[in-house]
């Protein structure tokens, strides 16, 4: 009697656990596929302008981004934050990002570098519909002269992050004429 009771209890636990884990998986899978991001900060480097959001929201061709940066690097978190915002603003499946750690993924790095014709280290490649363009580290951010470690935290944007948020768009836009490398983009004030 006692043995059968234990067996029943075990089976009960097993079924319960399987159902609970299946439910957990489904909820998280759906949550992962369909998500939304809010930025509560007042001046964030990863906040997008309305114009950027508009372009991202109406992407015709899928955009693939390959980041050739080591995870511990100066700009990695900024690049990661901004690209996550891009991805969240684009329709599902239209914007994909691959991070390549140059120290660990040598073979993959060399393969992709050949594919996108990359000749420099620490770059971010944007490709869409057969076009590709890469952005180097000195184009992503501005280093202040006083200390090497001090980043003025404007990756991908222009010289004044408060006034020129819209400029982030120039980096990846699939239209070839906008993709021309702008070293010092003009300021477009959003307000």
């Amino acid at each position, binding site marked *: 009697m006692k043995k059968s*009771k234990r067996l029943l*209890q075990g089976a*009960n*636990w097993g079924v*319960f*656990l399987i159902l*609970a*884990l299946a439910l*957990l998986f489904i*909820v*998280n899978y*759906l*949550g*992962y596929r369909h*998500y*939304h*991001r*809010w*930025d*509560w*900060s*007042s*001046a*964030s480097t*990863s906040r997008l302008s309305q114009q950027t959001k508009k372009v991202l929201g109406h992407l015709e061709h899928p955009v693939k981004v390959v980041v050739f940066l080591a*995870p511990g690097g100066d700009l990695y*978190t900024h690049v990661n*934050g901004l690209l*996550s915002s891009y991805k*969240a603003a684009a329709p599902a499946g239209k914007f994909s990002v*691959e*991070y390549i*750690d140059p120290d*660990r*993924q040598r073979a*993959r790095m060399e393969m992709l570098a050949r594919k996108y014709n990359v000749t420099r280290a620490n770059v971010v490649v944007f490709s869409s519909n057969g076009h590709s363009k890469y952005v180097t580290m000195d184009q992503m951010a501005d280093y202040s002269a006083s*200390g090497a*470690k*001090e*980043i003025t*935290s404007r990756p991908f944007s222009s010289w004044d992050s408060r006034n020129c948020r819209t400029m982030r768009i120039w980096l990846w836009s699939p239209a070839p004429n906008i993709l021309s490398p702008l070293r010092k983009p003009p300021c477009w004030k959003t307000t």
Partner: protein
Amino acid sequence: MKGTLSVAWKETLSYFFAPMAYIVITAFLVMNGLIFYIILTALSQPGSFSASPMALFFGGTLFFWIFLIIMVPAITMRLGAEEKKSGTLETLLTAPVTDSGVVAGKYLAAMAVYVAAWLPTLIYVLVLSRYSDVDPGPVAAGYLGVLLVGLFFTSVGLFTTMVSRNQLVAAIIAFTILIVLLCVPLLSFMVTDVAVKGVLQYLSLWNLMQNFAKGIVDTRALVYLLSGTALFLMLSYQALQTRRWA
């Protein structure tokens, strides 16, 4: 509902009528105060990197997680294990409260202690705002993250205390589960497979808390933490049911 609230009230009172809650909260605040001081000192050094102190305080350092994975099991360990040991479980199970009411009540009481431990840290924000500009958005998002991580971790602690007879065993199991939850996603730095890396990054509590600290509220983080909480609460309920029939 009434049963839930009376269990929650009774448990909260027994936390605050015993030295345990005060010891945990005091230790937590002393450690956090020290870390906050170190963060401020480090950031005010010439040539240091520029960052918001509160962003570092919320999950920006390893200490944030060390404190949490020690504090939460210390709060939850007595909830179920003690009932079993002192023989009051039978009284509780025959009281006019449903099993879900017992789980919810104990959970609310543990969360009350957790929130009570975090509330005094609002003083740091006040101190900072006295001497510099504090962006309220990321601070609010940081506290939201702290609350959600607390909900998740406390549910893990409640589950372990429901399945064990001994407080110490409950705390050690909870500690182990939390360490695993925290450390497995770190493997994402080692794997190269894109899909596996994506899953590990989704599960990463470090990334999630750093996003909250930057002011980014992502529904993926909410779904992960709340669904994890629901899972462990269901497991706690199931454990209590098993005890009823054991």
